[in-house]
């Protein structure tokens, strides 16, 4: 059984279709990345899955519960970190965590120990007495994410949780999330930072204009859409080598600055041999050479571009 199972889910606002008949399956204990450009339908999908808004059509089964019939039953078992900030301005950091635990009916003793654990895990010890209103955006975001771990849940929705965090806090949060998945938690994760998705997610779906345009593991997405590699050649002196390399078949010269040339090709090994041969026969010294596999970001951009076309 899947933790999330969605069939033909749609949401329309008048004539505007925000989400257009999407199908999704998320396995238990996995991190599912949900990527897409701005306005693609990520947050609307998230709002439907968290039962904040009802779908216009389609079915959704969350944790074995019909999402349209028993939304409250679902909400009792999930955690949600929304994209927009949410905080109590008059409460201190530790009071926020404590009160949030109380709202979820967490036992007082457990609340107390969890507050201490989360203050440490999210590096909030030094600001525990500070009021939320006095925190920086990043600190407030950390409190918002930490707060969600005050209660037990089977499924956690994270809508761009690392927005406003510095690199160290970001990595700390991602590692914390990974540790929770080991305990059996399932995570539905949206982000704009594709490195995060690559680092964290077991499966990734890309949504554009309300439709899912690709779903797979990060590696499979790379295999499917990222067979092309980039060859970067740095030469010692300024030369017009575009003309020399133009005869090589199966490659595209992407950039030529005179000393740095970038070539893209699916048959990168063959192209690399041909490039080196030509450079050698023309007495051109290579300073640096690298072959870079296509990143998830490039795949994302290419898949979205193709779907727009």
């Amino acid at each position: 059984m899947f933790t999330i199972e969605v069939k033909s889910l749609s949401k329309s606002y008048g004539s505007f279709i925000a989400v257009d008949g999407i199908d999704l399956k998320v396995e238990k204990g996995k991190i599912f990345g949900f990527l897409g450009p701005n306005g693609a339908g990520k947050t609307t999908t998230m709002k439907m899955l968290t039962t904040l808004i009802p779908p216009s059509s389609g079915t959704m089964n969350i944790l074995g519960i019909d999402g349209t019939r028993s939304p409250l039953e679902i909400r009792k078992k999930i955690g949600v970190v929304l994209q927009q900030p949410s905080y109590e301005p008059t409460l201190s950091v530790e009071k926020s965590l404590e009160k949030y635990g109380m709202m979820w009916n967490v036992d007082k003793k457990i609340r107390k120990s969890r507050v201490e654990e989360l203050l440490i895990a999210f590096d909030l010890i030094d600001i525990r007495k500070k009021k939320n209103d006095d925190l920086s955006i990043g600190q407030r975001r950390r409190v918002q994410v930490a707060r969600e771990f005050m209660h037990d849940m089977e499924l956690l929705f994270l809508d761009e949780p690392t927005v406003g965090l510095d690199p160290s806090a970001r990595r700390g949060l991602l590692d914390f999330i990974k540790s929770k998945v080991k305990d059996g938690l399932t995570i539905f994760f949206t982000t704009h930072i594709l490195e995060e998705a690559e680092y964290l997610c077991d499966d990734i779906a890309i949504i554009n204009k309300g439709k899912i345009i690709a779903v797979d593991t990060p590696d499979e997405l790379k295999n499917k859409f990222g067979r092309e590699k980039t060859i970067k050649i740095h030469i010692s002196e300024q030369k017009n080598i575009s003309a020399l390399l133009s005869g090589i078949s199966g490659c595209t010269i992407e950039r030529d600055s005179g000393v740095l040339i970038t070539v893209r090709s699916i048959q990168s090994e063959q192209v690399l041999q041909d490039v080196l041969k030509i450079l050698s026969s023309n007495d051109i010294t290579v300073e640096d050479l690298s072959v870079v596999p296509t990143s998830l970001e490039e795949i994302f951009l290419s898949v979205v571009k193709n779907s727009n076309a």
Partner: protein
Amino acid sequence: MHEIIRLVNRNLTISLNMGFVIWQIIFPLIYIFVAGFAYTALIHQVPFGSKTLDYPAFIATGMIGFNIMNSTLISGIIIWNDRRHGMFEQILVGPFTRAQYILSNVYTIGIIGLVSAAMITAIGYPLFFKQVEFNVLTIPLVVFASITGSILFGSIASIISTRLKSSEGFNVVINTVFLFFAFVSTAFYPAQGAPLILSTAFYFNPLTYLVDVVRAGIFGYFNGLVATEMVILGVGAVVLFLIATKLLSKLEL
């Protein structure tokens, strides 16, 4: 613990800070003692039903209603703050329904209203104790006025919270509403003797009914007019509460 109790607990925690409590005590105290005694030179006594009240006793009892309005308008902005700071959505993706959220705000407002009424009654008691006439209706009348008044003013604040988006607009509207309710009412001065337009305007103001019912309870004066005022207050509270609930349940996320 029931969901509504948990939400009320949360609402009280975020609403009751030291500044709020001091404001709730100091503000009416200034009116009771400064205005009460300063105006005594101008307004010696005030007719109230078959009785004649000293002005300090009149204003002290008016301040009970005033404080209920004041506190519930402030606590009514819980919804405004929740929307502004993202907690409205956060609560609704938690283990709560909209109905529970709305009811928790009503209970919070009711509690704050009752406590405010009790506080000002205790503080103002030395000023009106000589003219008090407790009877079997005293406590029911004061409690009725406190609860219906709290719901009524809390609903008004909730309605404003759901309709306005900018904080500047919200502050302007709340302050205007507050000034109208506070000073175009019988909280500070009696309707008798005021210019006709003003005394008529007093009765378009729910605070007048709230204050009159509180005074009727404290000074043991109950007649047909007070009964009518109670009905208007009750109906007004129910209607405004229903409107507030409707608007809140339709609030887009």
